[in-house]
């Protein structure tokens, strides 16, 4: 039964919430449930109000898997070049716990050329020639910090705010807080390259303690992106339509005995949504109607960029269709050597050459295309990674993990384009000064742009009011217009 239970329960329990609507929904998703209850939820994906006007409608979250060395991409350090080959001066290592073989090695420099671009004069290395053309669209954070020595826990933190599995990912919070803008598609979509789901990946788009309805839906490569999207082999569309019409009649007949039971009615509705999704989802990822010029723009004509370019183009199409959060995990790069991801403990030259090539043109294409279509102002693009890489070398040709200072960037609506926030020390190892950005701060900033106050985006779980930024997080105002 439990028709309006949560609503009443919470009012009586005295959480100071007069005037909650029947659906029990608050701005920012303050859905008042410790346990989701479809009856009170009504439609758990119904659009919900923001706390304040949103700057963007959608987020494209580019996770650079394996952690790129941002001192080889964006964070130009002339002193590092000068000191290359020498042991890192002890002063740079102050306050950090290194793990590699009991100490840091010699400062390492890769074979880069650096140039300033755009009116902002932002530095780019020769690894990202296409992205460099969009320098003035980007706000850099050169002082990102995080926790962790291994990828999995830091990736978890990047996506969920915790080093252990169990918390909801940022996208889940957003889906929960804002609902869906297009009921024919999931509001939170994950894209990955290659033919394998990223290992152990799904905790990074999990709904954690939020109801499962808010978890990310992994869009699989190929024409049928969602599990169970295709009808059983021998069932024609007209047949299925007949079946669903029968189902509707049977369910209506049955729920007639239970007037007022919204949960049963919601289930009736879910089948119609599913039917629409069967055509809407393949259409969303079908690139056949894209022009040759567009495909070229995203690098679809070239093997090295085709995989990632396809995801970028899919991302744009999902943005056009109102998907709120698109999480793109970078994949393996083409070519010999260990190129699973950006994790260049050795042979950075080869690894980063391949990975930068794979993403450079597609991301540049995405920025250009969004701009041309008037979507850049309502979309946020985030370049994020679990950590960066050390200024000192490893194995002579690679770099180790660096959670103490690395570059991430944001572009799109509400972003103060052409600026840089924070800095690292002279060799690019540690963030220095007051301006740093932890993952929680990045989450708070992303939520802010979506019109959500990270402190008020809450979910009652086991008696605790949980929020996306755990007990941390500050909006980085300097990044916002």
């Amino acid at each position: 039964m439990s028709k309006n239970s949560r609503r009443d329960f919470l009012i009586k329990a005295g959480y100071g919430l007069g005037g909650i609507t029947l659906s029990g929904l608050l701005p920012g998703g303050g859905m008042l449930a410790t346990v989701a209850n479809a009856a009170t939820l009504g439609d758990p994906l119904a659009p919900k109000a923001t706390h304040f006007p949103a700057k963007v409608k959608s987020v494209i979250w580019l996770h650079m898997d394996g952690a790129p060395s941002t001192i080889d991409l964006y964070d130009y350090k002339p002193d590092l070049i000068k000191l290359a080959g020498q042991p890192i001066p002890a002063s740079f290592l102050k306050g950090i716990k290194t793990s590699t073989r009991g100490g840091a090695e010699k400062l390492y420099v890769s074979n880069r050329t650096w140039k300033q671009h755009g009116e902002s004069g932002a530095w780019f290395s020769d690894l990202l020639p296409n992205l460099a053309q969009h320098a003035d669209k980007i706000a850099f954070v050169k002082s990102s910090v995080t926790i962790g020595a291994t990828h999995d826990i830091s990736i978890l933190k990047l996506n969920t705010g915790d080093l252990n599995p169990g918390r909801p990912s940022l996208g889940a919070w957003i889906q929960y807080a804002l609902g869906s803008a297009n009921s024919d598609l999931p509001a939170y979509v994950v894209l990955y390259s290659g033919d394998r789901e990223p290992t152990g990946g799904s905790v990074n788009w999990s709904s954690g303690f939020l109801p499962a309805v808010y978890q990310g839906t992994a869009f699989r490569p190929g024409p049928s992106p969602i599990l169970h999207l295709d009808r059983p082999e021998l069932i024609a569309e007209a047949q299925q339509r007949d079946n669903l019409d029968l189902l509707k009649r049977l369910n209506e007949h049955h729920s007639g005995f239970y007037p007022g039971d919204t949960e049963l009615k919601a289930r009736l509705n879910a089948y119609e949504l599913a039917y629409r999704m069967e055509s809407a989802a393949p259409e969303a990822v079908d690139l056949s109607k894209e022009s040759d010029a567009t495909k070229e723009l995203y690098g679809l004509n070239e093997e090295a960029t085709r995989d990632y370019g396809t995801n970028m183009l899919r991302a744009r199409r999902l943005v056009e269709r109102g998907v709120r959060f698109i999480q793109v995990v970078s994949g393996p790069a083409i070519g010999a050597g260990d190129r699973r991801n950006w994790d260049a403990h050795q042979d950075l030259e080869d690894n980063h050459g391949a990975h930068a090539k794979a993403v450079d043109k597609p991301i540049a294409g995405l920025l250009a295309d969004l701009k041309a279509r008037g979507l850049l102002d309502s979309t946020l693009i985030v370049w994020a990674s679990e950590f960066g890489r050390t200024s000192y070398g490893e194995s002579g040709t690679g770099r180790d993990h660096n959670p103490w200072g690395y570059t991430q960037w944001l572009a799109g609506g509400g972003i103060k384009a052409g600026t840089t926030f924070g800095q690292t020390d002279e060799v690019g190892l540690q963030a220095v000064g007051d301006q740093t950005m932890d993952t929680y701060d990045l989450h708070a900033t992303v939520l802010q742009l979506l019109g959500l106050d990270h402190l008020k985006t809450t979910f009652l779980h086991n008696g605790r009011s949980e929020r996306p930024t755990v007990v941390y997080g500050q909006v980085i105002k300097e990044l916002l217009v």
Partner: protein
Amino acid sequence: MKNNVRCLILAMLLSSSAVYAVDAPEGAQAKSTANKSSAANRDWSWQPVANSGAPEVQQKKWVRTPIDAFVLSKLEEKGIKPSPEAARAAYIRRATLDAWGLIPTTAEVEAFVNDKSPDAYEKLVDRLLSSPRYGERQARKWLDLARYADSTGFQNDYTRPNMWRYRDYVINSFNEDKPYDRFIKEQLAGDELYPGDNNALIATGFLAGFPDNKNSRDLIQRKYQIATDITDTIGTAILGTTLECARCHNHKSDKITQKDYFALHSFFANVNLVENIPAPKGPVEIQYEQDLAKWEAATKELREKRAAVIEPIRAAAEQYHRERYLTDSRESIFKPKSEWNATDRWVHHRLANVTTEEDFGGYLRVTGENKDSPEHIKEHAEKWLEYKKLTAELKKLDKLKPKRGSNTISAMTELGYQDAPPSYVFFGGNHERPLDEVQPAFPAAITSEKPVIVPTGFSSGRRTALANWIVSPTNPLTARVFVNRVWDQYFGTGIVRTVSDFGRAGEKPNNPELLDYLADSFVKQGWSVKKLHKEILLSSVYRQSSDYREDIYKADPENKLLAVFPRKRLDAEQIRDSLLVASGTLDDRIGGPAVMPPVPTNLNAGAFWEVSEDKGDWNRRSIYVFTRRSVPYPLLSTFDMASPQQAHSKRDVTTTPLQALTLVNSNVVFGWSQSLAGRVISEVGADESAQLDKLYEILFARKPDKAERATLAGFLKNHEKTIQSKLKDSDGKLALAVPVGLKGDQPLDPVRASAFVDLVHTVANSNEFSYRF
């Protein structure tokens, strides 16, 4: 900002602008409570259980068990009449789903409906509770709380090949009606309390189920996080207390201090995971060893060759590997054995358990692969090539490795020492910032009792002291929390709705006398879980009809008083398992290593999901489906299956298009509908009316009503045309989905048969199937 804190500010955050309203939570609460409640009242769950006896009621005839009097008395206060008794068929469907997690068979329904004996209900309930199906269902509930998984989680998400033994232990415990206090003691301290009992060792799988990343370079942090996971799991699952809130700071609503938290944490300071305890040899172990022997024989030479490559550099490789751990881990790692303290022992045990031959190969690669590397050692270049070649050849033989099972037991136990590492209060929950040292103790606000810790021959004895307190009569939480969970299971909401938070931020019991009666009689009846279930199943409250009542909808819209039996969406496992029963394809073997039924090919899970070879395994009950932390089984996860990352207190009920897609489009589910169609035709022949009756009897334990019958008949007629035209469009090349598993050779019109499959599939998709009323 340096810590992985899960702890949080209070629920009161929801209120208006109170961003950090934590300083005044009690004020906020007081505002909403008409009478300012005393501390004792607010900490009601810590007060001794008080059984006031069943209240006086007017409708004495309605009272079958004391439970009924407690419920009825509240109804009579409001002048509400309980609902009439549910029809027998509805009752047996409900009770079988609740006790077994399955729909009943038509024969079971018929037998019960026609049983005219006065103790028909009692006989039914006894039958339900004595079936192994009961343990399978109840175990699932417990495994949710135990954050049970068959893998470690995190990126590498290794298989834990022994965990199924713990799952079977839980099933068996419910089936044997093991007293709940003993059940808890075995899981927390079985190794200490019942030495020599393998089951008690396996029981510590409750502790051993922590998520783990074996590649962590920070062993000290791992030690801390493992004990944290265990402490928090016990708090949630057994004590119904949000202990974790007191890890970073004193609890914001309950009187649990940070010191209390770390005093509890310290009971687990000395536990280690031991995964290689030999298991007694049963069929699984024998089969496993036979398979393993085949792989060992086939790879013996290769492995010896590879070991020979490593041997001369083993010391250097080991050194290299060990140097890759973080500073404080290295302090323990490089300490001479003669100087090891309890922490060092823990670290070394862990190190030995997570280090593999492959780690040494890693050293060879670093020093041998790239001649431009400063770490390059010339002589290693050839060795690396040799090692690489041998490894590749070995990998080809991986397919010979045993696919399932094990011959070992995993346990959380101690390593033969009575002293434990010191424990501290950690500033902000940050294990790198120790404050005062703490000793094992129980939360001071709950009890004044002090732990009596008697070391055993091999362990600190700490967990025994904790387990004894948890199930002692002076701890009122354990019984209250458990009986409330069982109530929640039957009635959809607990007497305390916040089933895992009996603290101040949780909800108070809506019928405290009933809760205490249940807790008291549970303990008095020897913590018998079956007796508790039996009393509920036979109560008049449970036997009520779930039919809609306008008067109740108005008077008690949330049905708090239970004047109507509450309908409930089936859990993921109930849906899948009941479809298996309906289609006649359930493989009801009990226990054993976890199975992997087929998954959609575009799941792309690779080696994380290797479909079981034995097709019978595909149709085992859902509790036996492998729980891979990073690859939840799609069919179940769509329907709000428990997340195994943390103790899962209660299943969500969400209604989504992805669920609809799963039930409509999954080839597996559709296949079950084909089997069900075949079964119906086999059982009743070609008569349409009989077919519809049988179908409804199987799925809903009733016959279709007149309107449904007309709808279904009309559908068949039209649908045949749809299928005909599909055939016409495809020049007859398109195949039809027809019933499968037909017995005998009945002449079938393929178009009609195909239409019937669609009908069956659609009826199985209807609301009535996925709910119990």
